[in-house]
């Protein structure tokens, strides 16, 4: 028996198509969300990679910020990759002047923490929740989690180089964040994990 979950991808800016594909290949039904009515129709939401300042601007201009905050507070499962991680952080370091987040997760995230594009890189990460095979993690002008509250479960840390030990994947109940972009690698295990979180939350509600 399977519950069919509909997962939205916030589609104001960013790599929306890659997330839609990854969700569908990870066994979920996926749709874009740009309006309040579309937000109301989904059981879970992905905030994609992109430019967090632009996303912040657009969710405010198109009056999505408050509805998003309300649904997150009410327990909507949300997965944020890169810019999406920034959007879900309660506290932000190195944001642009006036930049706001949606919040929801008890973390301090540092924007562009690894540096500029020249410092963008890929490496393997070992994430127990995803099984034995390492995940190819692609970091693009990526943020990291600088502080995590007591209810936050750390899923992955950088394993090599000067940033070794920095938190790059975490979960707090229904909220999941990664600094990296699983959607550009063809490995859909992170999206499958998120789809499981969404299905679990649907079961709890019914």
């Amino acid at each position, binding site marked *: 028996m399977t519950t069919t979950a509909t997962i939205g991808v916030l589609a104001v*800016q*960013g790599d*929306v198509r890659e997330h839609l594909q990854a969700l569908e290949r990870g066994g979920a039904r996926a749709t874009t969300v740009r309006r309040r009515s579309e937000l109301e129709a989904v059981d879970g939401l992905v905030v994609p990679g992109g430019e967090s300042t632009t996303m912040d601007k*657009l969710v405010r201009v198109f009056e999505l910020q408050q509805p998003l905050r309300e649904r997150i507070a009410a327990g909507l499962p949300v997965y944020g990759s890169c*810019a999406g991680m920034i959007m879900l952080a309660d506290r932000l370091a190195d944001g*642009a002047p006036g930049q706001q987040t949606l919040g929801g997760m008890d973390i301090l995230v540092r924007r562009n923490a690894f540096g500029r594009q020249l410092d*963008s890189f890929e490496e393997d990460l070992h994430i127990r929740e995803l099984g034995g095979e390492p995940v190819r993690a692609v970091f693009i002008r990526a943020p990291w989690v600088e502080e995590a509250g007591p209810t936050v479960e750390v899923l992955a840390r950088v394993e090599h180089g000067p940033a070794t030990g920095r938190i790059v994947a975490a979960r707090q109940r229904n909220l999941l964040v990664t600094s990296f972009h699983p959607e550009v690698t063809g490995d859909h295990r992170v999206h499958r994990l998120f789809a499981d979180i969404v299905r679990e939350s649907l079961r709890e509600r019914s």
Partner: protein
Amino acid sequence: MTEQQTAPTSGTGTTRVKRGMAEMLKGGVIMDVVTAEQARIAEDAGAVAVMALERVPADIRAQGGVSRMSDPDMIDSIIEAVSVPVMAKARIGHFVEAQVLQSLGVDYVDESEVLTPADYANHIDKWAFTVPFVCGATNLGEALRRITEGAAMIRSKGEAGTGDVSNATTHMRTLRAEINRLRSMEPDELYVAAKELQAPHDLVREVAETGKLPVVLFTAGGIATPADAAMMMQLGAEGVFVGSGIFKSGNPAQRAEAIVKATTFHDDPDVVAKVSRGLGEAMVGINVDDIPQPHRLAERGW
């Protein structure tokens, strides 16, 4: 160099990291800026990145002369001023300008026909760099040749500095038509198609199978209004470069923000209508037809 260079597969400067950066810009607007102050206005208006250059194309056109990479001090001041990605232009074939831009830490290099070409035979070998490159194209063969040289993002060229969107339209429609033509072909026809496109067969086959370029496709050259941006998105662009259109207009901050909104809601005429109100004067345009052939920038590069 006898062997073709390729990108590393781990660490920095991989193909995924370079092309992935462009994926993150999708649905966004990249704005030309010539000062730190303009860069801040662009960031504040919601630009996903800024393009640092010495003079916007409309001024290059008006003033003439040789146009080159910007002053490193100016690029530094823009990098310092904003937290969004900063791109900068190098002349076609000028690999040392590109080396300098990489050394300055820019996030993307635009090997651009808007500047005066430095080499009329060769483009830059873009595989040799850690920094990713965006290049212009007027058709599919040109786009695939740039990708073969290592470009991680393509923009249709349009005709920069005119405020006349017609060439951008032509280039987007041409790219789309040529991709559709490949899709309809049998595998054994793709060899001749590759010959005609003057592009490698493996890339031609990839486009035929996926129905899209292997890298992100933006549009550029002549976009001056929210409706222009929305039309390009409806024609298949994944994002928009706006050059002279913003800072040569009456009210840059408001126009910049309107173009950002129209790009996101490109398929919703109500939104495009709403954001098009009260923007003041658009940049003064030049019809592409009035520009004598040797002064058309889109014809630089091959």
